[in-house]
């Protein structure tokens, strides 16, 4: 047998076993418990049931990801913490959670207040049409002639204003529910928002919407949030790297995201 191959396999085995062999338990708020901040609901990513901040039931891509991270870190228990105000997740200061998952796009401004892991998902902006729109837009120029809607205070709204430049100013809504309600009622021709979220919402009630016309490439990255200076950051990065590298995250995504976004046309 090839000695170099044996050595390589041995090294790989060591790497594999490393997290399990770690001597000290990871420095979490409560030893043996990973407390994970959430901002429910976000269909596909995280939905559930809560009593104030306590989460009694949760499911979705980010719930599975949190459990996979805890397993990889050798932490036996996961407790979820609901933060109803998204702004408080990304505000500076101490946090009641060890990590938080809420489809948070990594931006330099946010990174000044909180710490981010390596990205776990690269999201483009999606274009979801209303039912019965006569022609499907094939370019950003065609999109700009439609009545567009988006969500205020998001990277999506910024993209609409700076890159799409619609003929009529876009209508902005305070939350996803109101925005999609307007699309269902035909008050918008198209909604521009994070592609994976639009794909999930459409898959839930496909007959309420027209097709996903495509994506606008932005490749925004969602990262795991941590309090600034968290000692967990390096081991969370390492665990996330392994979860991505071994295909675990792909399997989780397949379970919750029914639409293959890579097959959608790219609008330019």
């Amino acid at each position, binding site marked *: 047998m090839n000695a170099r191959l044996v050595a390589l396999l041995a090294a790989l085995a060591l790497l594999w076993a490393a997290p399990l062999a770690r001597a000290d338990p990871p420095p979490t708020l409560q030893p043996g418990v990973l407390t994970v901040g959430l901002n429910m*609901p976000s*269909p596909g990513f995280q939905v*559930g*049931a809560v009593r104030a901040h306590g989460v*009694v039931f949760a499911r979705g891509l980010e719930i599975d990801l949190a459990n996979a991270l805890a397993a990889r870190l050798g932490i036996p228990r996961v407790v979820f913490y609901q933060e109803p105000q998204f702004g408080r997740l990304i505000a500076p200061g101490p946090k009641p959670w060890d990590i938080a998952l809420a489809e948070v796009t990594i931006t330099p401004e946010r990174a000044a207040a909180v710490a981010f892991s390596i990205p776990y998902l690269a999201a483009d902006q999606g274009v979801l049409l209303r039912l019965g729109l006569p022609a499907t837009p094939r370019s950003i120029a065609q999109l700009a002639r439609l009545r567009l809607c988006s969500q205020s205070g998001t990277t999506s709204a910024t993209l609409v204003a700076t890159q799409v430049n619609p003929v009529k100013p876009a209508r902005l809504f305070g939350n996803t529910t109101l925005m999609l309600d307007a699309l269902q009622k035909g008050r918008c021709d198209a909604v521009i928002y994070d592609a994976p979220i639009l794909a999930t919402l459409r898959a839930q009630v496909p007959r309420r919407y027209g097709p996903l016309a495509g994506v606008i490439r932005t490749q925004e990255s969602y990262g795991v949030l941590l309090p600034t200076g968290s000692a967990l950051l390096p081991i969370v990065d390492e665990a996330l790297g392994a979860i991505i590298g071994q295909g675990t995250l792909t399997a989780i995504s397949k379970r919750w995201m029914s639409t293959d976004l890579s097959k959608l046309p790219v609008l330019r």
Partner: protein
Amino acid sequence: MMRDRLKGTALWCAALLALAALGSAVTAGASGTAPTVKVFFGQGEQLVAVSRPGATVQDALTALVAGPTSAEQKQAFRSYVPPATRVRSVTQNGPVATVDLGVGFLQGPAVDTTLARLDQVVSTVTAIPGVTSVRLLINGGTPLGLFPGVDATIPLTRAALATPNVPATAPVVQPGGQASAGTLALQQQLAGLGYLLQSGADGVDGPATRTALVAFQKWQGLPRTGLADTRTRAALATAERPAPIKQGPAGRRLEVLVDRQVVLAIEDNQVVRALDVSTGKPSTPTPIGSFKVYAKFARWWSVPFREWLLWAAPFNGGVATHQYPDVPPFAASHGCVRVTPPNAHWLFDFLSVGTPVNVIASSG
């Protein structure tokens, strides 16, 4: 317009409920038997109440989780509430009942049935006298995002769930292609045999021609391709107009042939049209038997599935003929008879309240 129709439906439902309530009150009073509760199960595209012994919210929920009897199942009653659902607690504060269910209630990935479950619970609990709304908890917690399009953080009423929250979908008009003599000849054959309307023989291939071809292929037992392939053309050359399976009275009537997935529109024992339809899938089959159209709705709001059904003619509780955008060449519905868009309006006009509908399992 929409509001008026809705009011009509609501009044009609209220009248039925009142009659039902009257009926049970009279029965209970006359015989002195135990009181009953109303439990709502799905039947086709609507929820319909059945009676069970009991008096409290807990009694009603226990009966709901137990599901329909086998006799009810034969009449297409179906519960979307999983049998594994645990009723953790029921409390009542004035007209608001708080119902705490275990996560078994959310079992399974199918979102459309999740909404139907919610509607079953709300309808059943608010049928208890004195209860007007339901605050639902899952494992003791307030649901967030578990019921798409429904804010379940507030107490829910049956009226709120039964109120349409989307406009009826406008039909999508397909751009017509080029007319051709070959297509025209094919269409004339199909129209001559009752599969296509004479007015549909315009030489342009489209959805009306395809659904007529599928109806012909279903009747003939050919592969359901919707294409004028060699076998289909050969069969067309010698085919005769379909004949009714059963002889019946003079006038208009329908035969729904479950085995062939075809509806025969019959007048004076002659087949006027043979239509491509999709009936109830194996888990929710269309009940076999003789019925009559009891109402006609140009648009009918499906309460459990929260969508508009166009050109609906119910003939057995929540079971109706109605237009649907998706009519696959096999049985796929919740128990109703789905009709393709090119034919639905025609069938609606053909039917009257009282038109006999015979659902036949085997057409030989």
